[in-house]
């Protein structure tokens, strides 16, 4: 029953986000600030991880290709498939769940503890719209982050494959182009969009409805990371089942 209540409250929060909108000029600044905090602020870690994990994917593929009949272009093909289909959208989203969700939950939770949310309500401001809506809009730019992660992952794979002597540049690029199905990119970006909404709203829910003091803010951040990850994994499974099977 407790879980059902929480799910109900989550959807009520979503409804509350879209009513009684904040003044456009104020909202514009809030959205820009959130883009800076959530998107631009995450680019560094995303670029770093994408490049090196892309490299590891290429090396692992090359080292597991014992059979000499297998063409070297397979390294590029396998890297592309694993990076576009799973690594960039899902793996990066789990990392973002750690970075972004704890930031969102702790910042909103601290505002709850220090009565700043009450102050907004007393002024007649819809605090859900003021706090959560800009985060949702900012996270709509998340697919750009994933696009960068895809590019850098493949670049990392190319660099590792060529510098490590596992394949030539031409072989790797040939592999990238083999059997390319454009719908796989559409699938990757559809799930990225869903993850973006989850990344913005689940941590906001845990921050907004938290009760207690500083200790509870920390606990809420951890819980928020766990549940955001769980819902990303579950929705990944569902979307894959729906779109690819």
């Amino acid at each position, binding site marked *: 029953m407790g879980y059902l209540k929480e799910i109900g409250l989550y959807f009520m929060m979503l409804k509350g986000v879209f009513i009684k909108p*904040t*003044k456009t000029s*104020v909202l514009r600044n809030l959205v820009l600030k959130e883009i800076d905090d959530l998107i631009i602020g995450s680019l560094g870690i995303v670029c770093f991880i994408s490049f090196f994990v892309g490299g590891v994917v290429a090396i692992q593929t090359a080292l597991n290709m014992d059979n000499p009949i297998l063409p070297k272009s397979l390294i590029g093909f396998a890297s592309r498939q694993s990076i576009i289909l799973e690594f960039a959208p899902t793996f990066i989203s789990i990392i973002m769940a750690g970075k972004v969700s704890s930031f969102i939950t702790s910042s909103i939770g*601290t505002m709850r503890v*220090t*009565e*700043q949310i*009450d*102050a907004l*309500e*007393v*002024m*007649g*401001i819809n605090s859900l719209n003021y706090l959560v809506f800009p985060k949702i809009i900012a996270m709509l730019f998340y697919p750009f982050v994933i696009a960068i992660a895809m590019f850098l992952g493949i670049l990392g794979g190319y660099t590792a494959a060529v510098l490590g002597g596992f394949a030539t540049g031409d072989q790797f690029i040939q592999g990238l182009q083999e059997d390319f199905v454009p719908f796989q990119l559409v699938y990757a970006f559809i799930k990225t969009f869903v993850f973006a909404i989850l990344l913005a709203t689940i941590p906001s829910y845990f921050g907004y409805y938290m009760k207690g003091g500083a200790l509870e803010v920390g606990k809420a951040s951890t819980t928020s990371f766990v549940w955001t990850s769980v819902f990303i994994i579950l929705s990944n499974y569902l979307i894959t089942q729906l779109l690819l099977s």
Partner: protein
Amino acid sequence: MIEVKELKKGFGGDELVLKGISTTFEKGKTNLIIGQSGSGKTVFLKCLLGLFRPTEGKILYDGQAYSELSSEKQRTLREQMGMVFQGSALFDSMTVEENIMFPLKMFTKQRKAERRERANEVIKRVNLINANNKLPSEISGGMQKRVAIARAIVNNPKYLFCDEPNSGLDPRTATLIDNLIQEITHEYEITTIINTHDMNSVMEIGEKIVFLQKGHLAWEGSKETIFKADNDDVTNFVYSSDLFKKVREAVIKENQ
């Protein structure tokens, strides 16, 4: 003026937190709500602020019942309310000046220069010096309270609510904050309601005092009459501190 008529508030269970409170808070006066912890002060204040919907009864703001107003009019009425929170509740990502300009930014069409001018007027009024560009974390508790008061009055509110405005402050700063609130109340003819359990505040600025006990209005009067209150709960509350016990003994001695 705020009139409260037979206000009852519960949260779903059988027990009511507020059990039929009727009183009037007058314009241009500092009205204090006092009582022990758990007496229903905070719930009462939140009902007055419109954050809690009354289970029964009415709250009239200059004759208008909040619950009977359209959402647009409720919003207009809320814009006429200022609130000073116990912990100041300043937005910690904004500077002092931005905090004070915030209600103007949200509810007026003023340009930035006009907003800044008005903010500086109230900054001067609450005696904040050289703090405009500081963050709330960079100023003292007393200064934070001044910023909270400035933010609450920047929009020229008709009603000012304060929740324990001098908690956590040293006695001298607490008295300064009390006096500032009283001066502002008189100067701008605001209906001010202060939630407190500090007897020093009661004696400083208690022009009207409402004493709550277990959700009932047990007594109402002023700072002049509270020492003679014919109510055991009020007497126990007032004389719970040694200082006031001694004051009472001195008064009794003097009368003898």
